């Protein structure tokens, strides 16, 4: 399946687009997804952190990603 991952802040600059399209197999976890993204975009390694949100909640490594989930890359936040 193809995920359309939302990007924000420096993550959008690294990816070069507001949406990162990624072909993945059904049933991958957030940890798998992160690994895939880091191998495709090694510049993410330089960030203080990289979180993945699944349906507007922070996902943990074991969270399973499904086809119609809203996925977003969350680089280090700096609000306030």
């Amino acid at each position, binding site marked *: 399946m193809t995920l359309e991952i939302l990007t*924000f802040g*420096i993550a959008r600059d690294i990816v070069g687009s507001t949406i990162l399209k990624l072909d993945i197999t059904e049933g991958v976890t957030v940890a798998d997804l992160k690994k895939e993204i880091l191998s495709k975009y090694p510049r993410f390694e330089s960030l*203080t952190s990289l979180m993945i949100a699944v349906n*507007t909640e922070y996902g943990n490594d074991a969270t399973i990603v499904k086809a119609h989930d809203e996925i977003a890359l969350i680089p280090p*936040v*700096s609000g*306030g």
Partner: protein
Amino acid sequence: MIDIQLLSTPLSISACETFVESPEAGGAVVFIGTVRNKTANKAVVRLEFEAYTPMAIREMEKIAQTALDKFAVSKISIHHHVGILNIGELPVVIAVSAPHRGAAFDACEFCIDSLKQTVPIWKKEIFEDGEVWVAAHP
């Protein structure tokens, strides 16, 4: 009672203060974030804030709800700006009212500390000679 807003218009401090007014409250504590004119001695020209809107609102609601559960406070208002801000303008205003002031201080500080840690909002500092996403790199 909770009032969470993510706004592209200028923030109103008094809107937050008015929301938390309550006859049972003995006081309110307000945090007003302002854009500083420099970071690490480098002059800042302006800031740009962007948010992952639905998640940012949800995370701010969670923070306010946690503060209501954790501290003996009455009402919480959190307004955050998105878009361009100049020096002296307001990225964030947080107001908390409580029957006793100690809880209002603790809850207000908890809200701004938590907001800076978990809410998906990103700030870009624009300098004369470049720009940087704040806190992105170690």
